[in-house]
């Protein structure tokens, strides 16, 4: 079953890619989508300039956030951990909103770097508060509290600087609205982190068995932990720089995938990327089609599913 789920997930992903191109404020039949890629076609703008880059972006961001979640859950062996739950996403968001509010004319292409600094600070903050050997629940609760703190800082910034509110507001809940080729180009270099993460599949299997066994099997446990968390922070920051903090994706996707394909990272990491992409494409599709032409942010859709899931996990963890 485990190995068969990879092609099934791929098929679902393909179906959703087509669906995201077809449906929206205006529904287009499949034939018009193919034509929409030709310059001068009536649907060229809708398809090529609007829906296509956005769909690809949703796929990549979903995959990267899920991958970041799988890395974090893998090295700290904590099912409640993920960059969004631990406040890393909101840390990146706060840094980005701060940058946009105080330097409104600054170059937007610096956003990923700014978000990276924010998420690094958030990660260090958590480390400083919890230490290396804190319990599952303590880490998760501290992370959630920090995330709430960062979110309220974002609110505060928007209250004192109401002029820039529109930009920041779009950010807050995590949205793919208005994202296109420019953002896609911004994300491109960060895709290099994906092969780096896949390279770690084997040692990630071993560190999941506990540090003692991992070291005995030849893994440098503390180095692996540091490298994995750094890659996860990089993946998160680059996604947040583009869509804002999209909640719970990094938590739910790896968890579902583990149930689906098991815990071997050679299969888990690629599968979790597919599941993450599927979830965000679904969320964005729902966000665009529930009440057209009004669009809900995709982050609200993921939170509606993710928050109860998180609570369920929290109560299940002893």
């Amino acid at each position: 079953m485990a190995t068969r789920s990879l092609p099934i997930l791929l098929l679902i992903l393909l179906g959703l890619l087509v669906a995201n191109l077809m449906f929206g404020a205006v529904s287009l039949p499949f034939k018009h989508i193919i034509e929409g890629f030709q310059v001068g076609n009536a649907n060229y703008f809708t398809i090529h300039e609007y829906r296509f880059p956005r769909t690809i972006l949703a796929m990549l961001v979903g995959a990267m956030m899920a991958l970041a979640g799988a890395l974090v859950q893998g090295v700290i062996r904590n099912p409640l951990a993920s960059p969004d739950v631990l406040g890393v996403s909101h840390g990146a968001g706060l840094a980005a909103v701060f940058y946009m509010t105080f330097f409104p004319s600054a170059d937007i292409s610096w956003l990923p770097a700014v978000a990276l600094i924010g998420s690094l600070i958030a990660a260090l903050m958590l480390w400083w508060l919890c230490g290396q050997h804190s319990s599952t629940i303590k880490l998760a609760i501290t992370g959630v509290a920090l995330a709430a703190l960062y979110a309220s800082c974002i609110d505060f910034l928007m209250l004192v600087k109401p002029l820039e509110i529109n930009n920041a507001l779009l950010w807050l809940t995590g949205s793919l609205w208005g994202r296109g080729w420019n953002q896609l180009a911004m994300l491109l270099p960060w895709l290099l982190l994906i092969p780096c993460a896949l390279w770690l599949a084997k040692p990630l299997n071993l560190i999941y068995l506990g540090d003692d066994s991992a070291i005995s099997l030849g893994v440098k446990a503390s180095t692996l932990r540091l490298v994995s968390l750094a890659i996860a922070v990089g993946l998160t920051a680059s996604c947040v720089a583009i869509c804002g903090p999209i909640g719970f994706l990094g938590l739910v996707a790896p968890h579902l995938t583990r149930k689906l394909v098991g815990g071997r990272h050679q299969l888990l990491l690629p599968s979790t990327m597919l599941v993450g992409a599927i979830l965000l494409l679904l969320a964005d599709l729902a966000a665009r089609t529930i009440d057209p032409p009004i669009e809900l942010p995709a982050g609200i859709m993921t939170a509606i599913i993710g928050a109860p899931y998180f609570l369920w996990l929290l109560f299940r963890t002893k």
Partner: protein
Amino acid sequence: MSLSTHNLSVGYHDKAIVKQVNLSIPEGKIIALLGPNGCGKSTLLKAMARILSPMEGHVQWQGKNLHSIASKKLAQQLALLPQTQPIPEGIKVKDLVAYGRSPYTGFWGRLNRQDQLIIDSVMHETGITELADQLVSELSGGQRQRVWLAMTLAQDTPYLLLDEPTTYMDLSHQVELMHLLRKLNKQGKTIITVLHDINQAARYCDHLIVMKQGSIITQGSPDSVLTQTLMKDVFSLNAQIHRDPIAKTPMCVVE
């Protein structure tokens, strides 16, 4: 001597639990580390498995400082079975045992024919062949302990370090394990194991090392080590030493 400690102090959070221990592990034997709770036997074992870094002194492996040896190379020489293991979710028994081959496989962990042969043989030896496709998380404590042991054996190292391997096992599996250790020892492995049961150690091990408060009190063959005074000094127990009617090894009976 391949494995030795030199003036070794090691512990947790700046507090030394093992204090200035000099020890040479006799090669080709089954060695038991004994002593009351908190005496440092597990800590010493972990230091010899390079899980813990020394605060003072060092551990030597074939004349070199243990921590200066490439970790993958060393993993082909020394294997450790920790005292407690997390319960990994979504991992099958055969996958977990296969992880024991990690020091030999490439970056993606692909197994070759020889890896597969070794995995099959250790699963047979530990009696878990029929559990191969079950999830580790669904096993009983004793079964899980045997699966972890199989993974450690799959590492195929000349030295085996075991931290209370009989925990969670019922009596028949404990006996099976001790017989398996003897068999592995005959094949040339040096085995160092922390044990709680002194009689088990006296019956199945060649060399006993007794610790108290971070120091080695005495070591040697079971006959030379197990005495009434030792039981009194180390375990604060009034005990008599008798002879095991079957194995003819010393046996302590508490008064």
